[in-house]
């Protein structure tokens, strides 16, 4: 049968559909199946580390209008994101507690499979296919389990528009270059500068919406707020990284000059996002909205790092991308725990949970400290490496200004943590049992990974080698003739 790399993509999709065959009433069976499948998926991803670089390809369009293939390949960078996705999906599956669990779990698996396909794709068309496909389960979950359908539509329309941009750019690339089977290829065809810039804009726009980058972010707080906790954990942590992944693998790989051309604008937007997101996060009372805007702030830092064209910053970007995924997942799950118990997530209503629920308080402490960049955890390592790189690339003011949101992060995160977990108990809130063992088991591996990457961020260094043309794009930028000559 087929290759195990392909099964990384297929297993969740096939079994996700197969879940619909389970009895409708059996929530326990559904959750158990979901946990087993996502655990198997994690194992399957881990196995891929045994043969990094392995590829499978099946022809799709053979010549007209361009050549494309169902081409998947494992690389260090893809596996890093896949492993994060598998770990977080497993955590989300463990703590899923919703109505109609069978259908929810099926959608979660479909979401996991489509995102696996995205990260492993080696063909731009396949990438675009999964890019749009992964919107579907999110939309369905938002409609059925979310807080109101308005957010679902907003998510679909905004991201669908971005997906359209990606699809058009992909088609244009295919027609001009003759093939879309180019992701991670050693000698990808460079486009003529005249066409490259607007094709790049198509890609960059969709990546910027998906991540999101200021000012394309307004769909995101609504979506995260409306999502049930397991879904919010997965999309805020991993789906947001698909745009980052796009810039790292496709942006640097195929459009190094364009990356450089647009760098001033994109990194300025990243810097604005950092400060703006942190400021807005200081204001909101809804804990999920605080997390959403803190994400906007943190993702801005990733843009700053990517567009510094510095190899150390790229290591930092990967560490921070993983860190952000992990601590966001922890925080969304923990806020879910709080909401389930106290029936509210309004910071002003909550208080003193740590007195009766010390484990819950501890989990929130870990997540908050990782999020605000406590030295020793992965968020700090990523921040430090990114900003060393940004400073090293000569953007001294950017690196210095980017320190302000780090202070603000301590302010807004302690505002949540200390109000919710510390302080006197709020009398009219229900007193509920502390975390159950499975709720701890769900977040403990994420916390362990945060510690591991914090102590040893060099783990992400091999993946950084997959980001090509980082230094070359700087060197090549001055004489724009490289692409002209090769075309």
């Amino acid at each position, binding site marked *: 049968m087929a290759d195990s790399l392909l099964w990384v993509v*297929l297993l969740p999709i096939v079994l996700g559909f197969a879940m619909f065959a389970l009895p409708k009433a059996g929530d326990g069976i559904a959750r158990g199946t979901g946990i087993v499948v996502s655990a198997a998926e994690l194992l399957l991803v881990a196995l891929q580390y045994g043969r990094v670089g392995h590829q499978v390809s099946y022809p799709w369009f053979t010549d007209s209008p361009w050549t494309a293939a169902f081409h998947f390949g494992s690389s260090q960078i893809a596996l890093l994101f896949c492993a994060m996705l598998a770990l977080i999906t497993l955590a989300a599956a463990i703590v899923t507690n919703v109505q109609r669990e069978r259908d929810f779990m099926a959608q979660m698996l*479909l979401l996991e499979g489509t995102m696996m396909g995205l990260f492993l794709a080696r063909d731009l068309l396949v990438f675009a296919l999964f890019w749009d496909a992964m919107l579907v389960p999110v939309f369905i979950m938002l409609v059925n389990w979310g807080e109101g359908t308005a957010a679902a539509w907003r998510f679909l329309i905004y991201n669908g528009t971005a997906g359209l941009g990606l699809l058009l750019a992909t088609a244009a690339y295919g027609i001009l270059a003759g093939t879309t089977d180019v992701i991670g290829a050693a000698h990808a065809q460079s486009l003529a500068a005249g066409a490259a810039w607007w094709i790049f804009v198509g890609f960059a726009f969709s990546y910027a919406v998906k991540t999101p980058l200021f000012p394309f972010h307004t769909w995101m707080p609504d979506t995260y707020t409306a999502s049930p906790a397991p879904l919010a954990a997965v999309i805020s942590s991993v789906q947001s990284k698909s745009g980052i992944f796009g810039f790292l693998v496709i942006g640097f790989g195929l459009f190094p000059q364009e990356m450089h051309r647009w760098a001033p604008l994109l990194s300025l937007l990243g810097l604005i996002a950092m400060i703006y997101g942190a400021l807005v996060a200081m204001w909101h009372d809804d804990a999920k909205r605080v997390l959403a805007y803190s994400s906007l702030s943190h993702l801005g830092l990733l843009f700053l790092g990517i567009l510094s064209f510095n190899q150390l910053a790229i290591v930092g970007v990967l560490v921070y991308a993983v860190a952000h995924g992990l601590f966001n997942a922890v925080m969304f799950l923990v806020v879910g725990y709080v909401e389930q118990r106290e029936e509210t997530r309004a910071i002003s209503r909550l208080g003193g949970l740590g007195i009766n629920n010390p484990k819950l308080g501890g989990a929130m402490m870990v997540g908050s400290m990782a999020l605000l960049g406590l030295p020793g955890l992965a968020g700090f390592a990523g921040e430090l*490496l990114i900003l060393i790189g940004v400073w090293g690339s000569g953007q001294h003011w950017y690196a210095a200004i980017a320190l302000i949101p780090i202070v603000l992060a301590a302010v807004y995160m302690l505002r949540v943590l200390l109000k919710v977990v510390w302080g006197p108990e709020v009398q009219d809130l229900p007193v509920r049992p502390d975390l159950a063992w499975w709720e701890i088991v769900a977040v403990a591996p994420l916390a362990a990974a945060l510690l591991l990457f914090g102590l040893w961020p060099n783990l992400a260094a091999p993946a950084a080698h997959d980001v090509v043309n980082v230094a070359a794009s700087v060197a090549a930028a001055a004489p724009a003739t490289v692409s002209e000559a090769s075309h």
Partner: protein
Amino acid sequence: MESSVISWPLIVWLLPIAGAVAIWACGPLLRRFAGPLACAVIGAAFVGTLALWPAVAAQPAGVHVTMFTWAPGITVGLLVDRLSFIWLTIITGVGFLIHVYAIGYMEGDRAEARFFAYLNFFIFAMLTLVMADNFVFLLVGWGLVGLASFWLIGFWIERPIAVEAARKAFVMNVVGDVGIMLAIFALFATFGSLSYADVFAKAAQGPGPVMTLIALGLLAGACAKSAQLPLHTWLPDAMEGPTPVSALIHAATMVTAGVYLVARCWPIYQHAPGAMETVGVIGALTALAGAVLGVVQWDIKRILAYSTMSQIGYMIMGVGVGAYSAGVLHFYTHAFFKACLFLASGVIIHNLAGEQDVRKMGGLAKRMPVAFWSMLAATCAIIGVPLFSGWVSKDAVVYQTLAHGHPVLWLLGVAAAALTAYYMSRMMWVTFAGSFRGDEHGAHAHGHVPAWVMGLPVALLGAGSVVIGWLNWPHEGFAEFLAPIFGGTDVAPAAAWGGEFLSTQIPLFIALIVGAGIAYLQYGTAGALAQAPARLEREAAAQPAFLVKLYYWNELLDALFVTPARALAALCARIIDPKLIDAVLVRDVATDAGVLGLLFRRWQSGLVRTYALTLLCGAAAIIVYIAVVR
């Protein structure tokens, strides 16, 4: 000296974290044994530290352990040289005594085991800070001691005032952390390395302005951690933590990290124009400003907190003028006498059921002789009674300011010494002399922990406060011991006017007599003691608002930073995000697109969910087809 991977420094470093994790994980099982276990771990770390002595004494460059590559181009390891060794002895030695004391102090607390887990974790973090051989692990330790301090200030999480104090300490320390981060950016860009050895070897080649930037970034970290102006306001509030924490973290060890940092990075400061002067001035101003505020406090722990701020000011002033070993010596003696003062005040607070206001004390000398005699020894040390430890070190610092050519700093140092003598003597007379003014019914019922558990550490530290300065005899022993670190640079270029005796010892002695004498006349005479309650009330009412309000410094910081940030946050969240970006940029565009979309509407059934599922099924079918059939 390169050491093998499994080695003493590694063991000393990892013991406390192992203890912290074990106590944290087995807390409910350990119950009352959490404290003794935590003590055993720190005791073992202290023995391990002493076992490092021969190697450290024999090797001027210290014992070095390379651990692993943290990130490309950044290798981390441990370094125990003479400077870090000095800190290690205090962290594990004084730390051990305070752990023992805490068994008594924290007895019966709801979260006793958690307390000891935090305390062990703090020791680990502090060891990381002083054992790092590079700036990354320095910053990791720097952040983790901040975390431990935050946890322990807010240890009684149900008290809002403790929560606010913890928040303030954390945020101010993050401000310091980002200062160090800024320095790290510039260090890596300039030297291509973050290890001490590489950076210090090439420090002379660094361009002046960059070196100044690095030095000031580090100084921001030092000011935050060591409660120096303008980032000092968190330290007095931190007294909300349990008293052993105040003694260990907020007096003896963590708050002196800034002194360590400047002393460690002396090659940077030497080549950073203007930076040394800034350090010296900040230290001197803090020494004076802290002492002035010590005069108007009534809470015994707050008096000691302002005195800590002031004494660290002396240390920072010492390292700032280039007298590194004098600054380090003052750290060393201060660790003993200030830990003693805090622990003795803890005995009082413990026995008076939580009372901290000195106006409600009085006459305690007979009731609590161990606390009294220890505190008396430590007070003699801090105010500089000749031969006591503080006399040796304060004298060294003040003399060195003059010898390095800073007469203004000398004057500030002498003035602060007079104030120190005044407020410490005041505290002693009000607390211990006369008759008891408090509530007799508040007496504390003792549990099963014997009295020596708290008494012995206090007495030992009291004895240390007397003798520990003698380490510097017969002949500048500290400077000699540290000569391999500072390369002889901290020796004053020439003897100052009149020599040490005339220029410093005599003026400091006069300051002592004046300060303590005024305090005696005001609080210690028989007449003053007889009418103490009424006098103290009258005095409290007459205190100038500018001092009672702590120079309005909190209000100033609020007006400069907190209020504008809040206003900006509200502006972004209420107007820019919903009304500008979302309304104008997004929804209007969507509306325009919607008008266009009317033209195409006939193509669509409108059920997007159906489309979406169709799309997904199609994609999956294609993949399955390929995977299975081919």
